């Protein structure tokens, strides 16, 4: 395997030149990376291809091109790998008719592990009080914890979690993050996907960022943060006398470009805060009323697109 920030040492999962397309739509494009022990965050906006990649790692999807190996084997050819690999899917894939205890016992029976693990796994996700109630009555957060517990009951070496914090409240979130970090510190390979940077930042030591099916950035969280520090933001400004303000703005160091569109200005800047201070001053000097100042392009998706363009 190639060296670099996308590749982990002591890899348990190896992704080599993997592509996946559904008809005309390319979900993952020529992606190579690896995952090893510890907690890795898979970051990207919705539709980036994270779930497709995770499902290929688990053998639920066949790569259109390239290869996936988990613990040295192709999961689609060797189901015995599922004794050591578990997935917590994003969707509500739970049996509503079962209680959490029955659900976990079912997972244990299917994997061939002792049912004695059930109580332990329930305690790990703090679900003991509701363990004998049907899952159909659970909140979204409780269902998420039940799914995590069902994965933990088999004590997997590789744990893949697709947006596991969706629907959880802050207390549950903190508990799950601590749990994932604990598993990673035991030497397990834990992969957590998310579209929320702050979430990944709290738990992952290493991050792979995806957008449009490609790897946009890889490395530790600090490196990702640094890469995002000089991203230009697009700001919409509504001001009287837009032509005069536009020429004044172009003289400012933090302003990259200005485009006039009717009564509005579209300003590209690398420093939102500085622009926020400069604009009122320029408007006051020109005697023009500033009526609007709004970042147009602040979504995580645009940040990732920027990272992809830089590569």
């Amino acid at each position, binding site marked *: 395997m190639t060296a670099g920030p996308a590749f982990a040492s002591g890899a348990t999962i190896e992704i080599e030149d993997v592509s996946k397309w*559904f008809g005309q739509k390319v979900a993952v494009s020529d992606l190579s990376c690896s995952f090893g022990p510890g907690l890795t965050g898979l970051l990207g906006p919705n539709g980036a291809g994270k779930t497709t990649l995770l*499902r290929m790692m*688990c*053998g*639920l*999807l*066949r790569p259109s091109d390239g290869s996936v190996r988990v613990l040295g084997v192709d999961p*689609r050819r060797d*189901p*015995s*790998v*599922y*004794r050591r*690999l*578990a*997935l917590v*899917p994003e*969707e*509500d*894939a*739970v*049996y509503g*008719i*079962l209680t959490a205890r029955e659900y976990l016992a*079912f*997972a244990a*029976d*299917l*994997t*061939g592990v002792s049912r004695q693990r059930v109580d332990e796994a329930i305690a790990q996700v703090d679900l003991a009080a509701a363990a004998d109630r049907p899952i159909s009555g659970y909140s979204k957060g409780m269902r998420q914890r039940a799914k995590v517990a*069902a994965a933990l009951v088999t004590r997997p070496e590789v744990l893949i979690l697709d947006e596991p914090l969706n629907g959880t409240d802050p207390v549950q979130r903190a508990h799950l993050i601590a749990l994932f970090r604990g598993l990673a510190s035991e030497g397990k390979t834990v992969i957590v996907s998310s579209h929320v940077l702050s979430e990944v930042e709290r738990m992952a030591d290493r991050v792979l960022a995806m957008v449009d099916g490609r790897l946009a950035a890889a490395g530790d969280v600090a490196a990702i943060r640094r890469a995002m520090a000089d991203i230009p933001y697009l700001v919409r400004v509504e001001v009287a006398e837009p032509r005069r303000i536009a020429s004044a703005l172009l003289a400012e160091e933090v302003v990259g470009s200005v485009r006039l569109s009717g009564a509005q200005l579209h300003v590209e800047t690398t420093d939102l805060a500085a622009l926020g201070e400069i604009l009122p001053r320029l408007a006051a000097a020109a005697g023009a009323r500033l009526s609007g100042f709004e970042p147009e392009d602040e979504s995580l998706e645009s940040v990732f697109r920027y990272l992809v363009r830089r590569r």
Partner: protein
Amino acid sequence: MRGFFAITRVTLRQLLGGKRLALFGVLALMPPVVMWFSSANLPENDVSDAFNEAPIAIVFLIVLPVVALVLGAGSLGDERRDGTLSFLLLRPLPRTLVAGAKLFSAWLATTGIVGTSAGLGAAVVGVRAGDWAFVGPVLLGVAVAALAYCAAFMLLGYFSARAVLIGLVYVFIWENGISAASASLANVSLWRIGVSAYVGLAPGPISDIDEILGSVAPGAGGAIAKAVVIAALVIAATGALLRRRDLT
């Protein structure tokens, strides 16, 4: 086998939960109720003939296909619809074992419901005429036809979210219509497999049913063999599909 029986337990709860069992109960009451009233004023010698007319037709042409369709299609189809199929497939189990457990569950539930219905109908013959020899054959016939039907509908349920609708068209247009009208097509009719098992074991000549069997020879052994072959082919095909197809 621990995984097999775990899937069976949960699948039976899925299939027989909610209002389904109550609806099937009402449907299943039809044959014994019809038998009870149609044989009320008959002489003892004619009671068994009465059983071989309307009640048998209701069991094999209506109750059995409908129950097998809903349960067979639901056994895998419900898992796909609910997104729980990945929970079963991400296990160190052969895919054919998953398919086999699903078919076994649907067959067990269908045979339990329709077998009770048909058995009660045959029991009316015993009560009215003292002849209990129809109970065993009709139970076997139901079990055999249920296996063939559940297998076919499980595969259909895996492929299509509209399996019940497609299955109803199949049952009422093909099985009860086209194949019933043509003796040459009788060999590809699933309900005739069950009826041939029943006729092969039931006492006395049953002329009316013999006619509708067409080219299908009565006999339990052949019927069981046909149903087992269909089930084995479906399990192998479903196992291969579960292994090869993407689960999006």
